[in-house]
């Protein structure tokens, strides 16, 4: 695996929505490089015939009945909001549409 540079970490930080200074980017790039190097062997461990395990125990079909349960009040919903208005959460302007 190739070394991780500062630009790459910059892109990752953007994806992860974490503002980072140049020094921070450089430091994290170095740390990440070390970590990635030491976990690189993982990609060589298993052959193609080994299935992936995403759940430790093999459960399936865990469903809920379609029955309405207890809800929060508007006051409870907004109780921890950094900012709210008219019963809604208020946020600064959004850069562009999704």
């Amino acid at each position: 695996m190739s070394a991780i540079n500062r630009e790459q970490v910059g892109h990752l930080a953007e994806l992860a929505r974490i503002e980072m200074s140049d020094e921070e980017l450089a430091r994290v790039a170095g740390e990440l490089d070390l970590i990635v190097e030491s976990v690189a062997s993982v990609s060589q461990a298993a052959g193609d015939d080994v299935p992936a395990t995403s759940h430790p125990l093999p459960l399936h079909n865990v469903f809920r009945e379609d029955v309405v349960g207890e809800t929060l009040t508007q006051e409870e919903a907004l109780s921890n909001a950094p900012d709210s208005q008219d019963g809604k959460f208020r946020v600064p302007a959004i850069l562009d549409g999704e």
Partner: protein
Amino acid sequence: MSQDVLSFEEALERFDPVLGFEVHVELNTKTKMFDAAPNTFGDEPNTNVTPVSLGLPGVLPVVNGKAVESAIKLGLALNCSIAQKCHFARKNYFYPDTPKNFQTSQFDEPIAFDGHLDLELEDGTEFRVEIERAHMEEDAGKLTHMGGDAGRIQNAQYSLVDYNRAGVPLIEIVTKPIVGAGERAPELARAYVAAIREIVKNLGISDARMERGNVRCDANVSLMPKGATQFGTRSETKNVNSLRAVERTVRYEIQRHAAVLAAGVKVTQETRFWHEDTRSTTAGRPKSDADDYRYFPEPDLVPVVTTADWIEELRASLPEPPAERRKRLKADWGYTDEEFRDVVNAGVLDEIEQTIAAGASAAVARKWWMGEIARLAKQREVEIADLPVTPAHVVELNGLIDGGKINDKLAKKVLGFVVEGEGTPAEIVESRGLAVVSDDGALTAAVDDAMAQMPDVVEKIKGGKVQAVGALIGPVMKATRGQADAGRVRQIILGKLGVQG
């Protein structure tokens, strides 16, 4: 400077359009996809929420079993294969309407895949649209943009978020690229979305109200030079929310792409938005590396495993597909193509079917629903289905005519009163005393009066001028305020005069 759009005709002369649709259907389950908050529209903001809907720290999702069944039903209705095992995946992106900053969706294992839908265009041409997949996911909250122009996101100063809709179950249906539609592309687009809407409504899994966003369409359009086989660069116009807008969007995008390509410029792969006011699309943000959704299997949910028994049980519960039903009804009823199309367009298939089932003939059912009832609806500017007239009313009305209780003219009057909410036809005839006068005693008296007043007419009839009987019927009808059966009056007069009719 090149023009913004080419004429549709010129565009089609030079290019072949390729379409693709992503239709999101909001299910009408009682609760959300992953939590027990109510799935209802129009309530006070942030009241249909649980800690799960808000993505509070520590919460976990649990799948709504009803929504899974709805997804399987839809998959079956779209002739899809149903996955034996599939899991949910997280689609990671930051946006304030998405409480967890990831959408729980499906990625490499959709619940339904490889299906098709046969569409019938207005002139009866059939067109098959291949379905790539249908997968389960959750809706986002609703943003209101404040301080900008007309609620648009551009220039807004801030936004307000209501999470009532966050977590509402969605099924996203994705088509394979649709080629060969040519000039019928806009019409096909409309027909496709209309068919999806009809199917989900027929299945009873969605309210299918486009104005409420129950069915939303993202329309992909690209052009390739006539005869080419390699697809061009596509644009994706988001959230087109009416059938008319779908048709217009596709038409507009074909014209716009054509103008771009004709000017020798490359089409930008981007998200666009449809504006009903200007009947045009504008660019959103271009697709970029930033669209790295980092999908991975949702570790808080376990896989959905389907069995053949379960699928067959659901298949058996499916209602007849709308298109097949139409074919069957048309054959059963014996209507002409035109008659049947009018019935379909008037939206009274159900009414006519029920009217026939309740005992009326196909002709009688059509006569009333497409005749007087349609006129009353038009007069009141409402849909026929929204009038308080029921199939049972029509059958009852027809029975009154057959039994000689009322005539056609009275029947129309009675219908008017049914629409006014005065009761059933029989009740109205009774309460308003509208029945034809079939009491021979009363009629005979009226006939005697008329003959006494018009001896000359009586003589004419006696002399063989039978058609003169009409002159006597008029006054009798008048005397009985139109409630007499004209045929019976004629019989009585001729009988009295010993003349053969």
